[in-house]
């Protein structure tokens, strides 16, 4: 039988094209790698699970095409739509999908965690018969379960926003308002206050929680330290705006220092001198 080379030509051409592309890919990899590492360091990559979640919603092309922020916004609207229906599984799925698609905005993490920690326990208790029917122990259990989910979710956010004080504040609020765990809340507020660009109220609330825990000496030491760092008057040269001065509330902090001096019986000679 005569061997017909022409019959294999398309396959051979295809094979050569694939080999040439693979060799090119291997050759340009060292050239491309630094640029890719730069791009990766500047923005969170789309994860496979977010794409799989989006695939079912028919927005994959938009997602890949660059409409990432818009697709996340679209899913956030959907999240709110299912949230209005008190649909727990769907709400939780969409909350996670939104931050998987676009983990950059803090807004999604903050509001998603609030839905999980504050709204979902109410839905579950209502579904089990309401606050009058469900025993206190069971209510507490539900609160703990939902808070754990919310805290895990917020801790995941640190992977994208390691220095975000507002995430610590959110964690503190879950401990304080849902779990009634003042000590853990105080610790989270302390961490928030230590972050760069932390809101001024985080330090003040930390001190108040220490007072509530009866740790007045610690609160006093903290407030004295805090007071020194607060802006007292606007200074354009230093970039201190009147709004910052107002938000820092230095007079209020000083007033609390004086209260604590009274409670701790600190002598006038040893009192804090601003």
């Amino acid at each position: 039988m005569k061997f017909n080379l022409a019959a294999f030509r398309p396959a051979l051409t295809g094979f050569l094209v694939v080999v040439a592309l693979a060799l090119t890919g291997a050759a340009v990899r060292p050239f491309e790698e630094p640029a890719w590492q730069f791009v990766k360091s500047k923005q969170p990559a789309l994860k496979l699970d977010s794409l799989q979640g989006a695939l079912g919603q028919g927005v994959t092309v938009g997602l890949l095409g660059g409409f990432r922020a818009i697709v996340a916004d679209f899913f956030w609207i959907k999240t709110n739509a299912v949230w209005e229906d008190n649909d727990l599984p769907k709400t939780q799925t969409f909350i996670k999908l939104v931050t998987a698609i676009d983990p950059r905005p803090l807004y999604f993490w903050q509001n998603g965690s609030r839905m999980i920690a504050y709204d979902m326990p109410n839905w579950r208790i209502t579904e089990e018969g309401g606050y009058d029917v469900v025993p206190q122990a069971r209510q507490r259990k539900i609160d703990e379960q939902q808070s754990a989910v919310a805290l895990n979710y917020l801790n995941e956010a640190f992977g994208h926003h390691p220095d975000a004080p507002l995430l610590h504040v959110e964690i503190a609020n879950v401990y304080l308002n849902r779990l009634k765990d003042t000590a853990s809340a105080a610790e989270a507020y302390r961490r928030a206050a230590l972050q760069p660009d932390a809101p001024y109220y985080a330090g003040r609330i930390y001190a108040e929680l220490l007072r509530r825990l009866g740790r007045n000496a610690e609160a006093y030491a903290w407030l004295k330290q805090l007071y020194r760092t607060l802006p007292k008057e606007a200074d354009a040269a230093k970039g201190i705006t009147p709004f910052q001065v107002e938000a820092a509330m230095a007079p209020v902090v000083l007033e609390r220092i004086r209260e604590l001096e009274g409670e701790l019986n600190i002598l006038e000679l040893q009192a804090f001198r601003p």
Partner: protein
Amino acid sequence: MNTAFPFPLSGRSVPFSLGRLGIVAGNTFLEAVRQKLFNFLLLLAVALVASAQLFREFNFGSSELKFISDFGFGAMVFFGSTLTIAATAQLFFSEIENRTALTILAKPIWRTEFIFGKFLGVFAVVGVFCALTTILLLGLLYHRETALMTANPEAFEAGRIIHYGDLVLMGVLQWLKFGVLAAFTLLIASFSNTNLYTVVMGFFVLVICHLQYLARDAYGSVASLPLRLLVQLLGYIFPNFQVFNLADQIGIGVGIDAAVFLRVAGYALIYIAVIGALAVYSFRNREI
């Protein structure tokens, strides 16, 4: 001697000519601009970019300028990709289906000139598309940023947030990415029999190139050796389109690194040259 058969003569009897390549490119460009598809997609993209301001009410996560920038580039990438794939396939197959390819290639013209002429024609069309959408986005962002500066001067104490030069660089990078996509589509068209197959495969390539990084990331975690090699091979065969995604820096007051820009631009040009050459090689083996 077989002098009646035109194909062996084409591209062999005359030296390679940039002039002829330019004529093919010019005709391709004119043909593309006359098509309804180009005008339709351009109009849609322009309308979408222009309407970014109206959609800003739906923005929850990021700043308004970032949202407009994302929206504008999203429109450019989405419609630009569609235009690139559809126009390349249509302009190539119109020559095959109308039999004009036979007439052209019967003349002393290289298949290289034909393929690269087609590529440059499409590349020019996509360039016009990118230029128009970029200019529109520039205008829109400038207008909105000026309004925000007037309304809220404290937020702009350090000056403007948007780096307008970087917007232009991003437009150029998107254009180069579409160039790689056009070259890939031409490569598919060079062996494909139908326009539809080329368009569908073109979109598959677009999705795969955008997801290529997943194969690269997964490479280390695959236990099975054959599967691992396959994943690695896939990571090498397809270019990484995510590397062109530098637009994230624009709406947040961070500039694009010039070295990174040059690297990505070089990466695209290398791929355009290689894939273009492969399209020529494949087309030379094709019976028309």
